[in-house]
């Protein structure tokens, strides 16, 4: 395979980083990057934070806001081919069929199509229901974020909570509806989640936990206890669905994203790899259960891995050793940074090692997360990075120590 043809589908963080990493390993590769959005690859995290504020507040023209989101790249013009604004429709004998009918012959296909927001099945209030994943979503939502408007956010995960925080800053009245007993419960555990709930309430959010949405009326959201919430803007932030429909005929296991081995190769589909939010892989730092991880750090980590795998297969080289990337994620709410390392979601116990949870948003807090006797994660709440770095090092040592239990 002298000049392998590599088709990367999904032109966002994971797709772009894969193209860069493949070029670095195989300068002769013929790379085609396909994306269904009309935009060049851009960064999503600011969409619920600064960019949303800038778009809604009208401080900056939309082009300027988008310009800041564009991902900088090492790729020179002409080094790869890009097809934007066209979706992949299917896989045919290992090649990629686009929705416009074109067939892209491929020696390797890399799936980087990420996820899309899940929606509530009920009809109603269609003129005011929003989701947030893309720049276009952000623009539409920002238009509706007028000071004094009544906003109902359905789902208190990270994105729902960040939108709520940004909306409060913009002067909206915000109610968050969440079926679980606390916001961000799975990711943060009950003690930190309860502290985050207190932070939101302190900033004027009406947080209705243990509640779900029953129906939508023209201008109201009706909850399962019969309560009616006036709503000028409704945001559905219920979690995600992997974009795997185009892979139906690939032979891969698509039960939740694309199941891949530790080299990012899809199980059941020879020449298919998956990266980013879409990839479901086991991380030997924790255990052997494959999981999808929707953190910004994952596209970069998995892209390098996929490129190394492709390079090894092209040259017939030896596979690289174990893949065990350290997960990290952050969230910004009310000017407070939540910074996590490891996998706090896997923990059974939480120990506050710096500060005091009642001081959330006021003084730095660091919390360690353990499963059995083993540290699996650490989270800083408004903690200076230099402080969290010390606990991250402790976590690293614990995760890399041989397990004797």
């Amino acid at each position, binding site marked *: 395979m002298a000049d392998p043809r590599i088709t990367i589908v999904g032109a966002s963080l994971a797709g772009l*980083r894969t193209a860069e990493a493949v070029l670095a390993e195989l300068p002769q590769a013929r790379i085609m990057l396909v994306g269904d959005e009309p935009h060049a690859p851009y*960064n999503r*995290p600011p969409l619920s934070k600064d960019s949303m504020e800038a778009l809604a507040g009208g401080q900056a023209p939309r082009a300027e806001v988008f310009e800041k989101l564009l*991902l*900088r790249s090492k790729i020179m013009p002409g080094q790869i081919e890009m097809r934007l604004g066209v979706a992949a429709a299917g896989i045919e004998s290992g090649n990629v069929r686009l929705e416009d009918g074109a067939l892209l012959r491929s020696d390797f296909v890399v799936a980087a199509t990420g996820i899309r927001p899940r929606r509530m099945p009920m009809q109603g209030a269609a003129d005011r229901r929003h989701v947030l994943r893309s720049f276009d979503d952000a623009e539409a939502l920002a238009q509706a974020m007028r000071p004094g408007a009544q906003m109902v956010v359905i789902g208190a995960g990270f994105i729902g909570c960040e939108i709520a925080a940004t909306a409060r800053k913009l002067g909206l009245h915000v109610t968050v509806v969440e079926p679980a007993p606390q916001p961000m419960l799975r990711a943060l555990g009950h003690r930190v989640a309860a502290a985050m709930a207190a932070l939101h309430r302190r900033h004027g959010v009406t947080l209705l936990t243990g509640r779900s949405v029953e129906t939508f009326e023209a201008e109201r959201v009706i909850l399962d206890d019969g309560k009616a919430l006036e709503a000028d803007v409704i945001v559905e932030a219920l979690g995600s669905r992997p974009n795997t429909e185009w892979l139906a005929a690939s032979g891969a296991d698509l039960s939740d994203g694309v199941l891949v081995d530790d080299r990012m190769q899809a199980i059941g589909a020879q020449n298919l790899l998956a990266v980013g939010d879409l990839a479901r892989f086991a991380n030997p730092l924790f255990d052997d259960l494959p999981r999808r991880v929707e953190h*910004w*750090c994952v596209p*970069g980590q998995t892209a390098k891995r996929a490129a190394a795998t492709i390079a090894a297969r092209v040259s017939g080289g030896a596979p690289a050793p174990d893949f065990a990337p350290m997960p*990290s994620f*952050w969230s*910004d709410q009310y000017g407070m*940074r939540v*910074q996590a390392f490891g996998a706090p979601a896997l923990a059974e116990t939480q120990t506050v090692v710096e500060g005091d949870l009642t001081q959330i948003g006021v003084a730095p807090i660091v919390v360690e997360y353990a499963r059995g006797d083993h540290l699996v994660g650490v989270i800083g709440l408004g903690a*200076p*990075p*230099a*402080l*969290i*770095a010390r606990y*991250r090092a402790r976590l690293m040592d614990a995760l890399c120590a041989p397990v004797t239990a």
Partner: protein
Amino acid sequence: MKVHVDMSICLLHGQCVIAAPEVFSFDDAGGLVWVTEIDDSQVADAEAASDACPEQAIILG
């Protein structure tokens, strides 16, 4: 290679300190400091740091 961090957009994620501890570090006051002129052996780490920075604040040249 020259290393520059645009402190007007850096939000102190500290990802660069993890990716390239020889190039980036925190000073005693918790601020970010970095080596402005790196040699070839540090370029790969600095590039990894630049990729890992969620704010794209690191400029290599």
